[in-house]
């Protein structure tokens, strides 16, 4: 809405010769409106004419321009987007200029749902994946259409780093055109900018494992190669050190390993985080005072106890102690959760 000041000085459609042949369809309540403010007048004017052209299924440039004006002021009006899509198709509007128009809208309305779906539909029409399937990833990334879309999404993310539409859109591009490698680079840049960006961490999982499309939910989780698991553990630790209270890397590495390399939780991750928390370590004070450290220990010991039953008793004792510490010191707001968790750490599981 904020950019609509320039529209205030436009001549109302009802005073434009071009629109003389159209009778606007008013909103029912307008008859009862008392002292509408000027802005409301302008919007009502546009909407009256929009309703009229939609009612007669008009296909014309003036109708297209009108949808642009309405969307600019009120992008949540989803019916208008669909009308515009029909118009663009029937008028044969140039896709490039239409994409530029969507970009203009996105700069004003970052959180709008409709524009992403609209853009995806445009790109799908413009660049059939089959026509580029022989290109290498480098060539694909260099393709002007793909490069532009990646830039569009990253600009949106620049404006709002956790805009989940933009991140989903990137998933769609990556998956559709097969450009996984560049995404990892992008993710690392984003995590470097803000280690607390959970969207970026979620994207990292996506790049590593994919999103399971084409598979059923009941299929087992694919195992992660040792070298990749090790790489991810080191990466997560590097980021944990930057902000030990940040739940993202802890949640990421625990979730990743639990699903795809559970043994690595206790053979590799455990000693590394214990080293960080050990007395004398540079990080001891900050790591050992975070809820995330102790909560991760509980997860790891629980997993290890299941895998190594002869050590289970001792491991579960330590895990239960960690739950006590969490309930009393490190995460008291969730003390009921930790009491429950403790009660579940028994041999009979």
């Amino acid at each position, binding site marked *: *809405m904020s950019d609509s000041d320039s529209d205030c000085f436009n001549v109302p459609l009802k005073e434009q010769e071009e629109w003389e042949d159209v009778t606007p369809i008013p*909103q*029912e*309540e*307008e008859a*009862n*409106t*008392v002292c*509408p*403010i000027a*802005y*409301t007048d302008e*919007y*009502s004017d546009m*909407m009256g004419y929009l*309703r009229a052209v*939609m009612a007669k299924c008009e296909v014309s440039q003036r109708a297209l321009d009108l949808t642009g004006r309405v969307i600019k*002021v*009120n992008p*949540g009006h*989803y*019916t208008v987007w*669909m009308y515009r899509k029909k118009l663009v198709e029937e008028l044969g509007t140039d896709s490039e200029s239409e994409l530029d128009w969507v970009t203009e809208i996105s700069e004003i309305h970052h959180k709008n*749902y409709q524009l992403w*779906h609209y853009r995806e*539909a445009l790109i799908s029409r413009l660049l059939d994946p089959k026509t580029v399937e022989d290109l290498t990833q480098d060539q694909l990334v260099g393709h002007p259409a793909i490069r532009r879309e990646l830039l569009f999404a990253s600009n949106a993310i620049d404006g709002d780093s*956790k805009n*989940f539409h933009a*991140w*989903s859109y990137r*998933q769609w591009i990556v*998956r559709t055109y097969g450009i996984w490698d560049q995404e990892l680079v992008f993710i690392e840049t984003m995590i470097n900018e803000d280690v*607390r960006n*959970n*969207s970026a961490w*979620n*994207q990292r*999982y*996506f790049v590593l494992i*994919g*999103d*399971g*499309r084409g*598979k*059923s*939910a*009941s299929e087992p989780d694919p195992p992660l190669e040792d070298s990749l698991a090790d790489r991810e553990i080191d990466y997560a630790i590097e980021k944990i050190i930057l902000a030990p209270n*940040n*739940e*993202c890397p802890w*949640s990421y590495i625990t*979730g*990743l390993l*639990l*699903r795809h390399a559970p043994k690595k939780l206790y053979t590799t991750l455990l000693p590394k985080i214990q080293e960080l928390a050990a007395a004398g370590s540079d990080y001891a004070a900050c790591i050992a005072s975070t809820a995330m450290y102790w909560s991760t220990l509980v997860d790891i010991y629980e997993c290890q106890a299941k895998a190594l039953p002869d050590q289970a008793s001792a491991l579960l004792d330590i895990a239960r102690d960690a739950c006590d510490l969490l309930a009393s010191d490190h995460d008291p*707001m*969730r003390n*009921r*959760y930790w009491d*429950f968790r403790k009660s579940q750490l028994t041999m009979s599981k």
Partner: protein
Amino acid sequence: MASGKEQEEEGVYGGLHVDKHVEYVKSLDKRHNEIEYWMTEHLRVSGIYWGLVALHLVGRQDTLNREQVIAYVKSCQNSDGGFGGHVGHDSHLLYTMSAVQILVMYDALDQIDGAKVVSFVSGLQDDAGEVSGDQWGEKDTRFAFISVAILSFFGATDRLNTDGIVDYVCRSMNYDGGFGSQPGGESHAAQVYTCVAALAILGRLDGVDRERLSSWLAERQVACGGLNGRPQKLEDVCYSWWVLSSLQVLGRVHWIDRARLCDFILSAQDTDAGGIADRPGDIADVYHTCFGLCGLSLAGFDKFPLEEIDPVYCMPAKIIERAGLRSWVDKIPKSWNDK
């Protein structure tokens, strides 16, 4: 001699400005000189639904004119059987859901052509089991839930490929136990609600990682007592609903500090004009008013007799009972029957 406690003004109960919120909801239809009124035209039906739920929660559901609302809702049904957000707007699942919910609350579902609604909704599922919001094809796990919920009102869930829905929802489960808008999408509390609710209605909560998800949801509570929707994001009153409803289904509402959450919701009220905002100091809207009151009800706010809200349908539990749809409670996995 000072009494221990200040006399609370009339219509205020333990800090909850009930009368002001009722006036606020009543006033929404009259704000024709506000641009917001026109800007939200496309979701007017949902606005009425949120307002009606808010009124039900405080026992003032007769505040709106039943016949007028029913007539308006009926006028939003299109020839394809779906409902638009307002008269003359294209059909969409979101507004079809709100329309049906309003009619159920007014016990007037029989006044519309239910067969056409069922046909519209069931036509939105593709061969892969995924569900679009409308004929233009945007897919989202929210729509999986909505399609199941709407058809359950008509006893017609068998018109969907429910195995396909369960699979689609479960494939949208992430490494943290949460759910995203589609497979690979970041876990978000609102998507968690819709995914859990869909599985609850279909009796397939076995697909949920109860421990991991409950823990993730409990972690949404931040230091000020409010709830956020994703890690490292700001708290917002609407998550009082999205998070708490899911925790209620999972049987774990007690894992968050309910008193602090109630304090947070109350602090987001507009105590002059009524209504509740997303967080303290911001402008109220009917969406946050609805979900703030839902959150208070789920959190057990006891200074006013708030109606019980059904955590799957986001409608009064009594009404869901009357509609014969509380059976989802009986389909909760037996192994979940702990404290």
